[in-house]
């Protein structure tokens, strides 16, 4: 009899042990596990697309991209579905988490551009071209192109393929990125295809150094140009 009770107890406890709920950490890291499948430590090429890294990019920029995917202003179906039922507040929390993660930049990838082209690109990056109303890239992306908090991403450590795809999106007004005009898509449209090709090779060859700059480095004129991006704090659609 006693044996029976004992084995009964053992039976139930063993079932209970097998069925003990999985332990889940109450952290934001645990909550964004679903992103890590694609956004690991490094940029990588997936089966369907190029997966950019997101760690260490400025929070406001990441937040804007997340909202763009969710609201159909930047198009990548898997992320649109994933984010469909999330609010601005929650996206902001995710963005801040990824922005705060440390990131080791890849080594620069040397290019084989002719020196005349390199010179042209350097002028474009540091001084722009007033005849085409093109400000210097550095006027917005920071003197060392490491980005400006919180809305402007850095330009270094991004691979050629990703750069080319982003410019393609802005320039063709295509599904990926160009549907809504903003300061960056306007600039991308003014560049020539040769310039875009060269930038996509030149930028990855530059060594990344330093941190994103603070927003006060931006001239008022640049802030004015990018108003739609900087003031994009709209109310959440319930």
């Amino acid at each position, binding site marked *: 009899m006693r044996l029976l009770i004992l084995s009964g107890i053992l039976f139930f406890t063993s079932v209970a042990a097998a*069925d*003990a709920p999985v332990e889940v950490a109450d952290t934001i890291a645990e909550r964004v596990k679903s992103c890590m499948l694609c956004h690991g430590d490094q940029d990588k090429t*997936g089966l369907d697309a190029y997966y950019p890294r997101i760690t260490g990019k400025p929070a406001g920029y990441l937040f804007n991209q997340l909202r763009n995917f969710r*609201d159909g202003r930047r198009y990548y179906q898997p992320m649109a579905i994933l984010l469909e*039922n999330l609010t601005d507040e*929650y996206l902001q929390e995710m963005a801040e988490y990824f922005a705060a993660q440390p990131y080791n930049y890849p080594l620069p990838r040397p290019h084989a551009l002719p020196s005349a082209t390199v010179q042209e690109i350097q002028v474009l990056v540091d001084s722009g071209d007033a005849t085409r109303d093109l400000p210097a890239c550095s006027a917005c992306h920071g003197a060392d192109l490491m980005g400006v908090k919180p809305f402007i991403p850095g330009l270094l450590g991004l691979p050629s393929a990703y750069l080319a795809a982003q410019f393609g999106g802005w320039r063709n007004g295509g599904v990926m990125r160009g549907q809504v005009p903003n300061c960056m898509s306007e600039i991308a449209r003014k560049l020539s295809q040769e310039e875009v090709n060269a930038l996509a090779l030149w930028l990855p060859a530059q060594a990344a150094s330093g941190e994103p700059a603070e927003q006060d480095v931006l001239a008022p004129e640049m802030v004015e140009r990018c108003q739609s991006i900087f003031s994009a704090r709209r109310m959440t659609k319930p």
Partner: protein
Amino acid sequence: MSISISAKYIGRLQLVVLFIGWLFGILFPAVVWAKDTVETKQQRGAYLTRVANCAGCHTARGGQDFAGGRILNTPFGEFVVSNITPDAETGLGRWSEEDFWQALHHGKSKDGRYLYPVFPYTEYTRISRQDADAIFSYLRSVTPVRQINPEHKIHSPYDNQFLLFLWRTWYFKEGVYQPDSTKSQEWNRGAYLVEGLGHCNACHTARNVWGASKDDRPLGGEIVGSRWYAPSLVSVQQAGVGHWPIEEIVELLSTGINQHAVTSGPMATIVRQSLQYLTAEDQRAMAVYLKSLGEQDKDQQSKRKIPPMPEVVRQYLARGESIYEKHCQDCHGKSGQGAPGIYPPLAGNRAVTMNPPQNVIRSVLYGGYSPVTAGNPRPYGMPPYQHIIRDVEISQVISYIRNAWGNFGSLVSPDEIDQSRGSEH
């Protein structure tokens, strides 16, 4: 001592207040009523519009509230949702209460055109005139948006108004909800919400080629223009909730998740946009009615005998098991036990074993988060596997979870995986 005195005193005071209130209600019903015609009517309208989730369809992704422009893809063609802001040229600015009633109740536009039943007037026809007028008064108060939306692109012959007329005579049963006097007031409120405002049957019934519900009862069906299957609200093997306590039904409707289930795809969206905002009384009423629907399920199956498994099947499932261990076990647990309320258990989960299997396939292909709600403000997420593992592997792992830990369901093939793709939501 002093405590008991003040308690008594408050008790008295309450009685007096109640009595005055009662007297007032009897003596001045007209006064109370008249107040409903001004702001309260609009406020009530705002609430009812939320329950009916008009914004869910009439607002394009990232677009302006109620300005329409969203495109609904269906086998009959592309339907463009109308602008229902009070803009005079492009919206409802020139509509009267009567015009609006014609649309909501009879499915006719201001110009007499028959409306397509993608606009669920087939359900909204149950809404009372008083509620319809309140919705209209709210819609007149929203910001007018001047926005001309593109035309529908409907395949022939569905674009024919005469065919639509025939369809209506066959399938459209017009009429405001009639309370069932044998049932409680709460049950009737729930039925009104589910059948009318909530238009649950627009999805939860089988639709035939003409987009008409085959059966009045919510017995489940594929949603027109979507690969999601809206399960039966009657059957215990699908989404019938006859066997759940009321509190757990309310929890699912209001937070999108409970210890047995999570809402996914279009249902998660309905919870986010609409159900979470219902008053506690309305959520409860809905639950009471849904529970009674579930109790109608006669063929509650007794313990089924699981047939022995042929060797080939066993091998197929073994491959699924190793994929499960590699990709899924971390969150859903070694024995599919999950972490109820966070990572849904897969063992004993009818969403996993349901026939047809398209929802479980879509869950694995596309992943997703439960909706953000006040009760679940920071949900956990399921990764999308569509581009991570191949279709064969997806079919193996799904076949495995449908048949592990006492689960029993049909095996799925790579072809079925492919057929469940597409049409975002």
